[in-house]
């Protein structure tokens, strides 16, 4: 079981990283989602794996699984949901404002006029 879960975590991570390395914001959002699945599973697994021993107190239960990582994962799920919502909205906003959904900053962020040909203008006008 440990092998299954860890390989699944690895697979989700790889998928997430690959998608995040794409150039369109939607792929990046999907990658974020994948990554958060991976991390949630991982964080959960730090309580180690137990089948059918949920941490809900009841008569005659022999053992319970570790409840703490579960609480942490819950918090993490919620937070990553909020973050995903914001990034999706922001990607949408950037798309509507800019007309494409690339994630890379356009050259105009770094260079006046957005092109290297404008370098002269930005240079030391004294020279």
């Amino acid at each position: 079981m440990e092998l299954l879960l860890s390989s699944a975590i690895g697979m989700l991570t790889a998928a997430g990283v690959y998608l995040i390395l794409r150039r369109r914001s939607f792929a990046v959002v999907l990658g974020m989602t994948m990554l958060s699945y991976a991390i949630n599973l991982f964080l959960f697994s730090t309580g180690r794996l137990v089948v059918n021993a949920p941490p809900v107190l009841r008569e005659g239960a022999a053992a319970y699984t570790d409840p703490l990582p579960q609480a942490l994962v819950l918090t993490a799920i919620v937070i990553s949901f909020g973050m995903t919502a914001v990034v999706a909205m922001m990607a949408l906003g950037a798309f509507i404002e800019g007309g494409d959904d690339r994630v890379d900053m356009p050259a105009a962020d770094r260079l006046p006029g957005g092109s290297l040909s404008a370098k002269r203008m930005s240079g030391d006008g004294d020279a």
Partner: protein
Amino acid sequence: MSPALIAALPFIGALLPGLLIRSGRDVAAVACAAATAVALLGLGLHIPAIMAGEVITARFAWLPSLGLNVHFRIDGLALLFGILILGIGLLIIAYARHYLSRRDPAGVFYTYLMLFQGAMLGIVLSDNILLLLVFWELTSLSSFLLIGYWKHLPEGRQGARMALTVTGMGGLAMIAGMLILGNIAGSFDISDILASRDAVQASPYYLPALLLILLGAFTKSAQFPFHFWLPHAMAAPTPVSAYLHSATMVKAGLFLMARLWPVLSGTPEWFYIVATTGLVTMVLAAWIALFRDDLKSLLAFSTVSHLGLITMLLGFGTKAAAVAAVFHIINHATFKAALFMTAGIIDHEAGTRSIARLGGLRRLMPVTFVIGTIAALSMAGIPPLNGFLSKELMLEQASQADWQGHPGLIFAMATLGAVFSVGYSLRFVWQVFFGPVREDYPQRPHDPGFGLWFAPAVLAVLVVLIGLFPNAMAGWLVAAAASAVTGTAQHPHLALWHGVTPALIASVVALAGGVVLLALNRRLLAARAAIAWPEAKALFDATTRAATCAAGFLTDRLTNGSMSRAFAALTLTVVLCGFWAFSTGGWQGATRPMLPIQPVPLVGWVLLMVATCCMVAFHRQRILALVLVGIIGLMVSVSFIYLSAPDLALTQISVEVVTVILLLLALNFLPKFTMIESRDRKRAADAFIATLAGLGFAALAYVVMRSDFAFPSISQYMLANSYRLGGGDNVVNVILVDFRGYDTFGEITVLGIAALTIFALTETLLAGTSGRRLRNWVHDSRRAGDRHPLMLVVVTRLVLPIALVVGLYIFLRGHNMPGGGFVAGLVVSVALVSQYMASGFAWAQERQKINYHALIGAGVIAAGLTGIGAWFAGLPFLSSAYGYVKLPGLEEFELASAMGFDLGVFLCVLGAVMLALNSLSRIARAAGGTTNLDPMDIDPSKEARR
């Protein structure tokens, strides 16, 4: 007067022009002059004590733990420089009052000038090398401001930058040198350092310290090869040139060498570095000065040359040479300041400083002529002026110096320098004042008013007086200063006539050579013009431009806005660092047995892996990718259930659906497909990085799962006390609302903020240009009819109330069974979403106005108030101290106070989710949406009723 007050007076003076900004330039000048005069007076009061060999000190702690303290000392050297700074400063203030035109902001000028004066005075009065550093850099800064005073002049701006850069570089090197020096000596106080000569010179760090400090001194004093900045600083107004670039600032380097002379000098390293640099500078700069056309430039190079001369003298390391150096400092300050002022007057009156356009001013400006000629002849070393005296001393010392076993070398070079010196001095006098009166001056020159020639006249008188009566006029000062420099009492005898010495012969040779040079001047100029000399400014500009371009290239290429690169760097860093950290530690191997693999979980695993692969493969088909995300989320939730985490499964699956809805809302506008943009090589590289990350994280997870806790987990306590102290059977929920309720408080805040951010962004989008763009939006796909299908509307009429009841159930049961406020909030949100999907947002919102802002606010406040409530019981925030209340006759739920907290969670989650969805759907509605009046588009019963 305390040395500290003396040092502070110029700074106080610097404030005055600002405070008196409306009073005009006379008031500013008088205020500054008064401050300077008071400081000079204060300094003068100490003369008797200093002559008696005392050192006046003032000590204030500033940063004792670093050794940076406000320690001042006035000894002979400080006195000498102090008198120069304040005395000439006074003259400059007077001169500048008449020099500056009405358009120039005089207040600003005087502020800068006084700042500089204070910084310079601080340098010479410091008894702490770190404090000295502070003032040192301040002179660079104030000189930057003064050189760039005429902002409209490109030369001014460039010269200011160049001066700042070069002297700044030296200053930075000096920081290191001073720190090393202080650490060797064990103190940063000059008094202590001066006493630790042996320790310093024996230290292995002596040479680095020496080099670094000298770098500072040489750049400041414009020594070769750092001399090039000074001529370009001549773009400054002439009072500045006269003050900073002849009399004071450039002498800071000399001052420093003199100040540290007892500690650093006397070694071969010192001699060869300092004396050689000085010699080369002296000769080279004098040679260059011969050819300058600009008066101020000529004077600037001559200044460089004379600074080289003094540097060389200090470099000799002998006491007699030190005396000569000190004396020449005085003399140079007097004649050079006078010359600069003269040049300024000529510029002011004739409208040009170009020698080629001048000549014949002797008749038109007799006063100026007299002053300028006296000063220039002193510079040339013509007796009986003061320049002659110190030059004789210099030549005397040079004749005794030995360079690598070549005894006459330095003497010969020094004589050559003297020849050039005479040459350019005579050229200054001859080509400016003599010759026929011209008709083509830019403006008709005549002698200026008293205010302008008074200051140089004073200096010229001093030139003559010191030359005639050296011992009376300057002997005492030289003695005091030289004593301070050498550390032993000096009683130099200054005289015009020492007999026929090698120095005298050299002087005569110099005079003769100078006359010859003047005669050959035109031919020399032509010859020099024919050869392409490396222009220092061009070199500097090329260097800085290359540095700027390189920096720009590096910065633009490195931080090029590519997120992919940023992530690749992050991923690789994490993987490599993680691997390195892990592999350099010890792992005992697996200590936990593996759980057996059951077939059904195996199926789930296959599903998850395949879905993930497909997701990557098909991510360009965005809706499909979203469906696959749904499957992956489903599988993750199920695995939570299988591995004993029902709460997680509930949360994951409900978050999942809201996420999908949210992304669908966004995807409505985004392109539905992604182009292939990356080249194969990039994709392969990305895949490699991704695989690396996947393998790394999988390995980490595997190791974690197979290792036991090294210590018992704190969750044992939570399991044991969840019911007894937390009042709930569902330990996860008790952790969430009680043990770690503070986390949850933060978490709902995050959600609330997320929603507010989304709302604010929506508002911004709808209000701005994109609002217009949205209203003209054309959807890229064909849309089906029937927006609000009858069947969905009808079923929702049942599903919504049922879901609300389920939400209530999950909320109330959460403390004891899987569930809780968070999941309940999501369930209710999803239920409301189904209503909105069925009949449209606007229709539903019109019927039941739910203020989502208020829900968020109320939720956070409710959770917060539950926490604050504990304060009234004297307990910390979020203490659930109320115990339990059973509602009689009703459902038997235990109402722990934590439930109030959970209610806050519920409200906040509901409000946040709905506000976010609402905001997103508002964008869609702005894009040409319509609002329906009926819950369903097709309603046959309506006709029947009609």
